[in-house]
C-alpha cells in the first residue's frame, strides 16, 4: 500500500489542480494588512482569517483531489495496469485514500506553520488582550485536516459508485454542506422552538444527524481564536468518531470497488 500512497502524493504535487489551489495560499501573507481593518481585535481577526483560509484550501483539496483521484484513474484507464499488479483492490483504494489524507496533513502542517508566522507578526505589532494559545491554534488546524480527511472518505465512497466526476464532486460538496449544518439542525429540532415541527420531521432530522457525518464536531475555531480551553474528552471522542466513521465509509467503498467491473 505504501507504494500507492507514495505515487499518490507524488501525483498530487505534480497536479495542476494542486498548483491552482496553492495560489489561494498566497493570500496568507496579506492577512497582517487585512487584519488591521479591525480596529480592536487585530490579532483575533488574523487568527480567524488564517484558519478560515487554511480550512477553505483544505476543503478544495479534499473535494477535488478526493473526488477525482479514483475517477481519474478509471477514466484514464490507469486502473487496468495498476489493478493487474498483485495487490487487492482494497489495498489500491486505501493507498489512494491515505495518499490524499497524508497530503492534506502535510498541507495543513505547512499552512499552519505559515499561519503561525503571520499571527506572530500581527501579535507583535498589535498585542492582543488575551495571549495567543498556540496549542489551540495548532489543534484547530489539525482537526480541520481531520474533518477534511473524513470528507475525503465520503468522496472516495462516491467515486466507487460513480462513472463520472459529478457525483464524487457535487455529492461530496453536498455532504459537506449538510454535515456542517446537521448539528445546528439537531440542536434546533430538540430545542423548545423546534417542538412546533411535526414529529416525523424531527425524527427524520435526528436520523440524518446520526447517519450523516457531523463536521461541526471538528470545528475548534472559537477555541483557537479566543483561547477557550479545550476538553480532552471531547477531543478524544472526536478522533474516535473520525476513525470509526471513516472506517465504515472506507469498508463500504472497498466492498463496492472490489465488485466493480473494469470493462
Amino acid at each position, binding site marked *: 500500500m505504501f507504494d500507492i500512497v*507514495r505515487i499518490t502524493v507524488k501525483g498530487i504535487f505534480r497536479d495542476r489542480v494542486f498548483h491552482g489551489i496553492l495560489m489561494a495560499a498566497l493570500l496568507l501573507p496579506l492577512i497582517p494588512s487585512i487584519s488591521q481593518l479591525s480596529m480592536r481585535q487585530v490579532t483575533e481577526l488574523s487568527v480567524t482569517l488564517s484558519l478560515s483560509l487554511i480550512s477553505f484550501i483544505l476543503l478544495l483539496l479534499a473535494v477535488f483531489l478526493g473526488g477525482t483521484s479514483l475517477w481519474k484513474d478509471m477514466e484514464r*484507464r*490507469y486502473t*487496468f*495496469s495498476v489493478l493487474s*499488479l*498483485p495487490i487487492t483492490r482494497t489495498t489500491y483504494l486505501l493507498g489512494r485514500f491515505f495518499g490524499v489524507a497524508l497530503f492534506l496533513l502535510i498541507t495543513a502542517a505547512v499552512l499552519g506553520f505559515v499561519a503561525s508566522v503571520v499571527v506572530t507578526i500581527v501579535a507583535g505589532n498589535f498585542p492582543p488582550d488575551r495571549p495567543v494559545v498556540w496549542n489551540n491554534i495548532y489543534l484547530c488546524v489539525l482537526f480541520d485536516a481531520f474533518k477534511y480527511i473524513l470528507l475525503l472518505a465520503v468522496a472516495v465512497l462516491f467515486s466507487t459508485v460513480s462513472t463520472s466526476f459529478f457525483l464524487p464532486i457535487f455529492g461530496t460538496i453536498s455532504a459537506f454542506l449538510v454535515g456542517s449544518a446537521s448539528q445546528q439542525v439537531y440542536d434546533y429540532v430538540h430545542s423548545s422552538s423546534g417542538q412546533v415541527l411535526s414529529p416525523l420531521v424531527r425524527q427524520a432530522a435526528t436520523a440524518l444527524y446520526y447517519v450523516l457525518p457531523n463536521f461541526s464536531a471538528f470545528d475548534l475555531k472559537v477555541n483557537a481564536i479566543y483561547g477557550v480551553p479545550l476538553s480532552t474528552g471531547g477531543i478524544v471522542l472526536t478522533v474516535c468518531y473520525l476513525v470509526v466513521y471513516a472506517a465504515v465509509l472506507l469498508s463500504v467503498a472497498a466492498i463496492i470497488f472490489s*465488485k466493480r*467491473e473494469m*470493462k
Partner: protein
Amino acid sequence: MNAIEISGLSKTFKGKRFTRVEALKNLSLTVGQGEIFGFLGPNGAGKSTTIKTLMGLIEPSAGSACIMGIDISSPKARRRVGYLPENPAFYDYLSAEEYLAFVGTTFGLDPELLAKRSEEVLKQLELWEARKRPMRSYSKGMVQRVGLGQVLIHDPDVCILDEPMSGLDPVGRALVKEIMLDLKKRGKCVFFSTHIIADVESVCDRVGIILKGELQSVERVEDIMTRGVVGYYLTLRDSGGGTTELYVPKDELSGALASVRDQGGEVTLIEPRRKSLEDFFLDIIKGRNG
C-alpha cells in the same frame, strides 16, 4: 503444470434495457510454459474480456481459471504475471523510470535488482534517453514500450499481452517479436491477443480463434501451415538449359516429378503454395457466420 488453465469460463454483461450480452461462452483452454499462444479474433470476439478476466479486472459469471496453478480470484495469481493492457495508459505524471520502479517495488524486487533490471529493460526498449521525462510527453509507441517494460521488469513466468503490436512502427513490432521469442527461449509463457495474423504466423506455437465469445479452434501453427499446402511451384531446367515454372496441385506432385524426370528435365526448386493462416482464419469466420 500449465502456465494458464481456463475451464468453462463464461461472462455475461448486463446490456441496455435489461438485455444480457454473453461476452464469453464456456471457454476452456490451456497454455503451457515455454509456449507462445496467439489469441485471434475479430473485434468484439471476447479476446480482451478473456484477458481481463484472467487479470482479475472482470469477475467471471461461471467457470474458473488458474495462472501457474493459482486461482485467478487471488491477487497471488498475478505475482508471476506481466500484463500489458490494450492501448495502455500509465500515470502520466511519472517518468518511465519512476513507473518501472513503482511496478518493480510492488512485485517485491529488491532495490539493487530493480535498478539493474530497470536499466536493462529501458535500454532494450530504447527508452533509456527518455527515461526521466514524464510519460505525458511520450508518443503512443513509447507508451506501448513502457507497457512492455512494466511487463518485463520482474521477469515474469507468464506474459499476457493484449494487442502488444498496437501503435508500434515496424521496428517496434520486430522488437516485440524478438522479445517474445526470447521469452519463449527462456521457458516463459506468452499469451497474446492480436488482429494481425502475420504476427501469429511468425512467432506463435499455437493459435486459438475466438468468435462471438466462443473458442472456435485451437491449432498448432505448424499444423495449419502443413495442412494448408494446396500445391507446389516447381522450377524446372530443361535439357537446353532453359528454366520454366510449373504449378502442380498437391496430389499430383509425385506424377509431375516422374514426368519431368522421364522427359529429361531437372527440378531445381520446389516451393509449396499454402493457404495462409489468414485463409484459415477467414474460413472459420465465414463457416461460423454463413
